[in-house]
């Protein structure tokens, strides 16, 4: 009997990886039936249908339709009360306070799953369920909840659950990696991390051949998109090509603390440069757009800094290559946005004063490092010339 493999299509990865993971699935088809689970997202569905369903007809698609919405307050209270009971002996050091008081009273109430989706048939024919090992900043929406609905059912029925490393694993937020029977990772460091930090046994971890790495790595923007973005930022061309070094900070709402600290530190650097901040037009917290948050929340810092402009660009933040084209230095505060690239331009770094442990190639972890890095960079860049300056020099020489 051919076993069936269930594969939860991650929405965010579908976007970032442009469905490259399908080549992993294709490999399974000769031996297994594969059912891909997707959420009720019509755009995604159309995209998947158009781009690959026709090519892989053997793959069946399961649309996880919504089954129930909105748990009434009374029910939610019950869940919270039961959660309290389940964990009330766990205390947080050094204050020795009960964890439930901090977890249940506020945040968790908002984290109760509000949307339930239908599960595919999970019976003895199912050999394994594959879901992504999400990095926290991409663990949003349907998939991030649904994978645990799947996980629970599989656990009850003794079906193995497999987490696949798409993005590089976070060694900062890793609680959610505890929940799999097996792990498929693309790099050795991830395997060591799972064993060392989470206590996963070596036999539960499979290391993928290196040839798969490009399939599980973010794809940069196509050339047309880059051109379009250049048009969008045309109004800043004066700043960009003025010859004054340009530092671009790719903003992150969730890392506001680091951004604020970054702007404060940059304002202490005496060398000349311009500063721009990149935001995304659709990002918001409650009633505030990201752009509005910056203007109001960093009002003190910005007034004292060399801040020039804000670019409200409809471009993925994980495009360091793009930002590096027009900046002398690109600084991220969200490591996941730079970690999942095969190679990074030299002028891209990330700064994170609170995350001393994050596993990345380009980290600047404290304020002193940041100041010396930026000053060195700007000093070195002084020796470099703009394209126009090069031509001008050549012509003048001639």
């Amino acid at each position, binding site marked *: 009997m051919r076993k069936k493999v269930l594969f939860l299509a991650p929405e965010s990865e579908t976007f970032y990886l442009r469905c490259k993971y399908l080549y992993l699935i294709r490999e399974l088809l000769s031996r297994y039936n594969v059912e891909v689970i997707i959420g009720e997202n019509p755009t995604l569905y159309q995209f998947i249908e158009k781009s690959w369903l026709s090519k892989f007809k053997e793959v069946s698609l399961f649309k996880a339709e919504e089954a129930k919405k909105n748990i009434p307050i009374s029910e939610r209270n019950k869940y919270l009360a039961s*959660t309290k009971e389940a964990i009330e002996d766990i205390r947080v050091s*050094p*204050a020795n306070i009960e964890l439930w008081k901090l977890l249940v*009273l506020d945040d968790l109430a908002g984290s109760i*799953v509000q949307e339930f989706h239908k599960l595919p048939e999970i019976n003895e024919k199912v050999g394994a369920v594959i879901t992504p090992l999400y990095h926290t900043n991409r663990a949003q929406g349907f998939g991030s909840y649904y994978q645990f609905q799947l996980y629970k059912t599989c656990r009850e029925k003794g079906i193995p659950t497999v987490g696949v490393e798409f993005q590089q694993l976070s060694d900062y937020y890793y609680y959610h990696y505890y929940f799999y029977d097996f792990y498929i990772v693309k790099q050795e460091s991830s395997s060591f991390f799972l064993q060392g930090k989470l206590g996963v046994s070596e036999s539960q971890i499979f290391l993928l051949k290196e040839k798969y790495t490009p399939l599980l790595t973010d794809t940069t923007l196509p050339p047309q998109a880059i051109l379009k973005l250049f048009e969008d930022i045309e109004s800043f061309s004066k700043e960009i090509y003025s010859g004054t070094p340009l530092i671009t900070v790719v903003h992150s709402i969730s890392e506001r603390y680091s951004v604020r600290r970054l702007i404060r530190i940059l304002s202490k650097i005496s060398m000349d440069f311009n500063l721009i901040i990149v935001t995304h037009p659709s990002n*918001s917290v409650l009633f505030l757009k990201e752009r509005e948050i910056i203007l109001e*929340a960093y009002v003190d810092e910005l007034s004292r800094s060399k801040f020039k402009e804000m670019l409200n660009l409809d471009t993925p933040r994980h495009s360091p290559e793009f930002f590096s084209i027009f900046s002398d230095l690109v600084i991220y505060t969200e490591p996941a946005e730079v970690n999942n690239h095969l190679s990074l331009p030299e002028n891209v770094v990330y700064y994170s004063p609170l995350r001393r442990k994050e596993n990345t190639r380009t980290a600047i972890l404290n304020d002193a490092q940041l100041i010396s890095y930026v000053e060195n960079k700007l000093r070195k860049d002084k020796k470099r010339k703009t394209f126009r300056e090069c031509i001008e020099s050549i012509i003048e020489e001639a």
Partner: protein
Amino acid sequence: MKLKGKRGLFFVGQPHHMRLWKPVLERLKKEGMEILYVTTHTFFPFEMSALKYGISPLYIEDLLDEKDIEYEEEEYKRLSRILSERHRNYKVFNLFSPNSITKTLRHIIREVIAFEKLLEREKIDVIFALHELNRWSKLLAYLSFRKGIPFITLQEGAYYIKHFSLSFHTEYSTANLVWGQQTVDLLRKLGNAPEKNIIVGDTHLDWAIPKYKGKEKFYKKKVCKDFSLDSSKPLIYLIQGSGKEFLEYPLGAVLALMNISEDFNYILKIHPTAQRNYVDDLREKYEKENFKIVQNYDSYDILAGSDVCVTLGLSTLTFEAFAFKKPVLEIEHNKEDVYFANYGVAPLVKPQKLTEEIEKVLKRGISLEIKKNIERWLEYVFYKFDCKATERVVDVIKFILREKGFYSKKKAKPFVFKNAPRLRYSFNVVVLGNVNLIAETLNRLLDTINPEIDEINLVFPKSLRNLYMEFKENFQGKGVINFYLEKDGKNSLSALYNFAIENSKGNFILLFKEGIIPLRFFVKEEELKDNVLLGAVVIDKAGRVKHLGVTFEHNNVVYRLYEDVELSKVPVKSREFKALDYVIFGSRETFRKVGKFDERISDYYSMIDFTLSAHYAGIRNVLSDKLIFGMVSNLSFQPLTPYSHVQFYTKWRGKTEYNLLKYTEEDKVDIYELYNPVEWGLYHDEAGSPLL
């Protein structure tokens, strides 16, 4: 009370936290208090609430160093392992995605480390937060409790949902200052301590009402201009309840049913907790020339300028609409969710009939009956509109600081015994004025004592001089009974106990009030010699157990253990507590070690306060199974100060956690029940309770 030199810490949360506390903080600053504004890095930009007022808050993350970050990592690793095990094995966790917990867990640990460091580094006299219902203020409240720093909270908004977290509103606070009796009643139903809730009124309305009074036309013009509306038409203010995620209010469905008239202007105010994308969707679907949807615009400008308010669900703003004296209509969408109409303060309207109802209200106003109901209801909800809520809050804060200052310096006064110990037991009964009760107590005592070696002392306050004379005359010649009149006019129970103790001639002293009688008395002298105070099990006239010891429940307030069954059904055993009540029995030496009863403490707490002092002086408080007393009637006393409960909890801050010191497996069940005073079934009730 001078506030100069005092330092207050305010936790900056969401904008309304700042709005409600701002008038108080300004006032405190004016009177000399230094306020430290503190916030943390979290998803919602808390810092913006302070920046709006030109205040740069201190980020607790700034306090962390390399060592702290290493500690944080170790703790995250430890807790991740333990929690994930539970997460896998408890069904309830099906509803919580580990993806959503992974970040929160990290931040919680960081905040625990940083807040603790903050309170170690800064000298803080008092901490303010809007409430202790989110993780940040709960943590601060907990730490301040541990460190004995007063923690003062306000009411967050109108409370109408019986939400889980509301059950923990008074857990670590010294005082929670609320708008009106309605809140006290609701919080009490949800298991909160009425002792900690003090009614003061709404600090926001203190300035909002005078700001808008008489300027309705101005604000109508302003709002209409801002939204390009014709200001000659009536302005209808549609108020949405608190967020779709909380109330499941079918806003879209109701809007679709609503008949929108061209004769009016409408502004629909979306609750600030709703997501921006949700609001943008609504705008796209429903906005018209005379129908505007807003979220981030001053709610009170619109309220002041509106002619009629229509509530779609429950919101604090609707409650405030009544305070602004606006006519309010309540939209009916589901009979079970009716709220204001149940109180008789707003007519219930079907969405399809809205225009007709608005026309009626505009033409005739609201009925006299509704007006009367509103008047009574507003008093119940908001207490007073005298613009003195801020003043009352400041008064309570000063009171608490004064008490804290007082008790940090003062120690218990020593007893001055007037007689040498020449007898065995002194049975001291404080007389409160009920002749029948005194007689019952006396009769029983005469059967209990050994007249050769024991004495009975009846202690009368000065106010009962006549009764004292009468008793003295009637009982003359019965040598074992002594009558004492306290001549300084100190009426408090504590003062009378002190007076009784100082006049005792026994080696061992018993204290209780009239109306309490010994039923079983098998204590031997040697049991009283070793730094111990004994308490008694107390049963009522019907033989039911009314007192099995004193403990502190999850709000850290006094909780008297009892079992409302006959004594034979309760396995009574000796147990050690932090405090005792009703009856105490100890050696003269033990009383001497503790020092006098605190005469400033309210009568309710006099014995509890004394035995708590004894506990912290190294004396064991044991509820003895050899002492069973009866309670003929339970007399109550007047508190000595207006905030007497708060006074007690300020004095004992940090020392009133659960206190049954040596419990058995059986008791663990009691503890568990004690810790869960709220029956979760309550939440199935409809919101609110019948009032009028």
